């Protein structure tokens, strides 16, 4: 009995802990500037979308930049992860273990360890402050995890299928095209959502590789909104909610795929 009461109490406290910041943010984003005086907890009296309109007028360009950058980066890194993961999963060759280990280890490099050469390199090849520069960067640093995720995914496809194709004389490329790729859709669903989330939410590369409005993604635009004293709290909160929305939709409507990416990336080796 007591344990039951205690566990209900704990759950209520937990729900408040997890949801209070989200509630406050949504609540404040719907308030008028005068309404802010009542404080962040008192519910907004009327639904006012002015803060969203203003936030969008300041960050609209950044949303476009983000989509134009995140979608290609996601697709390219997922596709290259699929081809690489296939090679590691279905073929034994000399040095495969060590090569895969070195590629996966790349996932764990702190960005500060490569940041200075990265900025220099991207500037040298003329891609500083361009979406292409960010796409290239995200594709490169996405390789370790997309390769690993696809290697694990293809590990579940029975070897016999590819082996019999090999006996029939099919080459590496045609096995991939004819057998592996058609079976890859669920894998792509998981990996593209995983990559979209990571790249959409990324901040440090966006901060150091762009300058000004022309190619700045959403994360930097929201951070700037927060940094200026010009934007009232309700506008900052509206900006944050809009920036969170695309990924939030995945978490709400594609929970299973999100969870799969998270757990596959975390626990399995």
């Amino acid at each position, binding site marked *: 009995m007591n*344990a*039951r009461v205690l*566990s209900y109490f*704990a*759950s209520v406290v*937990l*729900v408040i802990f*997890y*949801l209070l*910041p*989200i509630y*406050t943010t949504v609540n404040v984003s719907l308030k008028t500037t005068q309404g802010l005086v009542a*404080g962040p*907890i008192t519910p907004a009296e009327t639904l006012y979308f002015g803060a969203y309109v203003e936030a969008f007028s300041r960050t609209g360009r950044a949303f476009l930049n983000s989509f134009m950058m995140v979608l290609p980066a996601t697709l390219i890194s997922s596709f*290259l992860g699929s081809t*690489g993961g296939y090679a*590691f999963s279905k073929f034994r*060759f000399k040095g495969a273990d060590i090569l*895969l*280990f070195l*590629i*996966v*280890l790349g996932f*764990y*490099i*702190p*960005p*500060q*360890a490569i*940041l*200075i*050469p*990265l900025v220099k390199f991207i500037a040298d090849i003329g891609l500083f402050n361009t979406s292409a520069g960010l796409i290239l960067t995200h594709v490169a640093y996405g*390789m*370790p995890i997309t390769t*690993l995720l696809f290697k694990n995914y293809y590990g579940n496809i029975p070897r016999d299928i590819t082996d019999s194709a090999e006996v029939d004389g099919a*080459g*590496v*490329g045609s096995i*991939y095209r004819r057998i592996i790729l058609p079976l890859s859709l669920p894998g792509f669903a998981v990996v593209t959502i995983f990559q979209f989330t990571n790249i959409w*939410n*990324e*901040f*440090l590369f966006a901060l150091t590789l762009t300058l000004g409005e022309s190619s700045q993604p959403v*994360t930097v635009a*929201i951070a700037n909104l*927060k940094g200026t004293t010009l934007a009232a709290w309700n506008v*900052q*909160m509206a*900006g*944050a909610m809009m920036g*969170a929305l695309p990924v*939030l939709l995945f*978490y709400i409507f594609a*929970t299973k795929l*999100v969870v799969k990416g*998270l*757990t596959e990336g975390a*626990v399995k*080796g």
Partner: protein
Amino acid sequence: MRTSRNLLFFLLPATILVGIFVYCFAAWTGYLSLTDWRGIGHFGEFIGFSNYESLFQNSVAMNALVNTLVLAVAFIVVTTAWGLGVAILLEMGFKGAGLMKAICLLPLSFSFVVSATMWTWMFAPVQGTLNTLLRMLQLGFLCQPWITSPSESLFCVLIVYVWQFSGFVTLIYFAGIRAVPQEFLEAAEIDGASTFQKYRNIVVPLQKGETVGVVTILLFYALRVFDLVYLMTGGGPALSSEVLATYMYRVTFNQNLFAYGASVGFLLFILAMAIMIPFLYLTGRGR
């Protein structure tokens, strides 16, 4: 022969990209840290380890190193214990465990930029949510200066980190607990074990693999903590929440001390590799 040539073609993109962007760049950083490079040209004058000498004699840098380690240890211990506790709570079963799991996971969907915006408002000293809530509950005497106080700023960063990642830990442990064979638990019940004993002696010890996985991923995030600190406290007040990653950014991009910044970045690299490689070996990753 053809097979091996075509195979190479499949392996090349990942190998080249990771080779350049990870390993060449890390080596380049390592080299720059031994020079006096000021951002012009590609390589500076070789000056040996003097950047590292200044680094280890600099009290601001050492403070950032200590903060990084303190935050990492606190984050991993608290988040792991918290996540496991919640997973057990959910597993003990009450209606709405599924919904609860989804709620716990929600914060992970936010970028650090978004969560920093949310929590800056939570922690704001006058109008902030936490202090407002305390006053509403007639607990005004508990109001804190939160991120504006040097003694609380790092703790505030820790709270936000726990908020974002504990749901993920819960998710992993929840699946791990579910995977415990039912016969083990039934056998223990026949022997008269209490619920507490069942968890203490059977369920929790079986979560070794989950724990290693969880700690690995939390370490990964702990060592690269940048966004939250940069956006919530800026490393302050009075450098109280400065970590190596924000320090590196500040000296490099605000003070243009590129070579010195490279030495900070390379220190982080050594630190990360020294900690991560044994862990990756343990989890058998990439094999």
